[in-house]
């Protein structure tokens, strides 16, 4: 059989048998609505609360600080809109980094129409936000600072604790989009000190369409989805019960082997980075070399365009991503890659590998065999490429 190498785990992962099995009963046997009064409803309710505990455990939070959402994007929207709408008196400025996920950027921009000002903090060539910049940008009317824990396109991990302290000195709330980190590196909300944190099932081995927002106890939050008393009034709508159970199980599994997993993936990642940068000329390794997700290797290959690259890789049984899964069909230069100072042309040739425990050193070697060939082929027919 031909080797198939899937290295796009940040976009989606096949559910493990454990996670799948945990969910199954909640599709038919244990089907009751968790909100009903009779005792059968409590069985489902209890299972949800159990999942909430497991998710809380993964990030060292209390269970009642967790709201389940339908995605990481919803968690980001709930954080930003929830804080801004609930705290109008603090002021009308929101600060985000220039490399946030669309769901953060566009939630912030939504408030521009409501008379808010949004400040975008630049990053350095590694994608790091400079705390000094935040100090300068922050103002008494800044209600919220939102800076992602790690960037999904370049893998850089931001100095959240330091940034959060600056926000708190100013009396501003601090939110971090931790979709790329939770489940990949240890994340401790108390240690970080933040007020709100978003996570998504997709980076945990949980089903798609699941996520959660951590909010520090007593944080005022306007619901994004108004209605009934589900999630203690923070988020209405009948719960995606199987999804929540799957998220809980996945969180439980990750808690157990977080360190070991990170170690394994770091070694694969470094083998990949080392191999790519040494075998392909004019390749730009993107993001920070050390402050970096263990499962993440990203590059820009000069002279070629990302979509063609991804397709030709997939024709050779290698599956990777170009930029974020969301942006990849929007045919635009990635704002993240522009923000770290790459030219538009170079940024076109973006390729991102995200690893998982199912990947082996042989997988990496396969990529190291295929990628240079593919790059060469595409460069040969590129009017932009000159040897």
């Amino acid at each position, binding site marked *: 059989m031909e080797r198939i190498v899937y290295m796009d785990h940040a976009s989606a992962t096949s559910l493990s048998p454990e996670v799948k099995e945990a969910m199954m009963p909640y599709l038919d046997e244990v089907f009751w609505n968790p909100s009903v009064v009779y*005792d059968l409803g*409590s069985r489902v*309710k209890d299972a949800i609360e159990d999942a909430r505990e497991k998710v809380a455990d993964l990030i060292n939070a209390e269970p009642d600080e967790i709201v389940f959402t339908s995605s990481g994007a919803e968690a980001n929207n709930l954080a930003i809109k929830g804080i801004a709408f*609930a705290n109008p008196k603090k002021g009308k400025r929101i600060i985000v980094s220039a490399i946030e996920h669309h769901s953060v950027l566009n939630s912030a921009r939504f408030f521009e129409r409501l008379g808010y000002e949004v400040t975008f903090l630049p990053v350095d060539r590694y994608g790091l936000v400079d705390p000094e910049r935040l100090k300068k940008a922050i103002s008494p009317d800044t209600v919220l600072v939102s800076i992602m824990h790690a960037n999904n396109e370049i893998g850089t991990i931001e100095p959240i604790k330091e940034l959060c302290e600056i926000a708190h000195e100013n009396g501003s709330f601090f939110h971090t989009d931790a979709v790329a980190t939770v489940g990949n590196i240890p994340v401790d909300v108390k240690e970080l000190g933040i007020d709100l944190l978003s996570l998504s099932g997709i980076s945990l081995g949980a089903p798609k369409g699941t996520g959660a927002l951590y909010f520090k106890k*007593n944080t*005022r*939050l*306007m*619901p994004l989805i*108004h*209605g009934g*008393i589900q999630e*203690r*009034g*923070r988020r*209405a709508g009948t719960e995606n019960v199987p999804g929540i159970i799957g998220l809980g199980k996945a969180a439980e599994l990750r808690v157990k082997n977080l360190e070991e997993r990170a170690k394994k993936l770091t070694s694969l990642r470094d083998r990949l980075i080392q191999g790519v940068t040494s075998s392909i000329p004019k390749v730009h390794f993107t993001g920070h070399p050390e402050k970096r997700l263990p499962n993440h290797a990203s590059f820009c290959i000069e002279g070629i365009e990302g979509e063609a690259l991804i397709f030709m890789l997939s024709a050779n049984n290698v599956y990777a991503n170009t930029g974020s899964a969301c942006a990849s069909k929007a045919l635009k230069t990635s704002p993240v890659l522009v923000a770290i100072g790459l030219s538009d042309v170079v940024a076109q040739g973006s390729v991102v590998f995200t690893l998982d425990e199912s990947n082996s050193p042989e997988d990496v070697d396969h990529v190291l065999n295929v990628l240079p060939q593919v790059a060469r082929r595409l460069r040969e027919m590129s009017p932009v490429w000159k040897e």
Partner: protein
Amino acid sequence: MYSQKVMEHFSNPRNTGEIPQADGVGEVGNPACGDMMTFYIKVKDGRIEDVKYKTFGCVAAIAVSSMVSEMVKGKTLEEAKTITNKAVAEALDGLPKQKMHCSNLGAKALKEAIKDYEIKVLGKEHESELAKKNVKRTAECTHCGVSNPITAKFCMNCGEKMED
């Protein structure tokens, strides 16, 4: 959500009914709000010789009144007066947080019945109805705990309907 003890008392409530010529009757709650209890006591030699009740309300309300009736039967009036909401809830192996308010009702109704007896039989004065006109400017949302103006119909924070 309910303990087995609660469910057991709910399914087989003790001492239900009325006492036709009761020595004391106490009524609390309002059926329009979903809960109302009437306690009847028969007193002999300073002891609660018999106790019965009628309850309109949820599972917790019914279990609480049943438990209160068991707890005070045969007790002296003074002993009965010391019964706390907490003791009732504990005797039931706990009550869900949003139902604690029921446990208050049970003890309250019983105490009203004792008061009624004391006025009727002993001539004691009703204490001035709990100085309960403490003018509140804010109300806490029972769902998210955030303070709201008392005029708020829905919680400003979580959007849930405010209890009146």
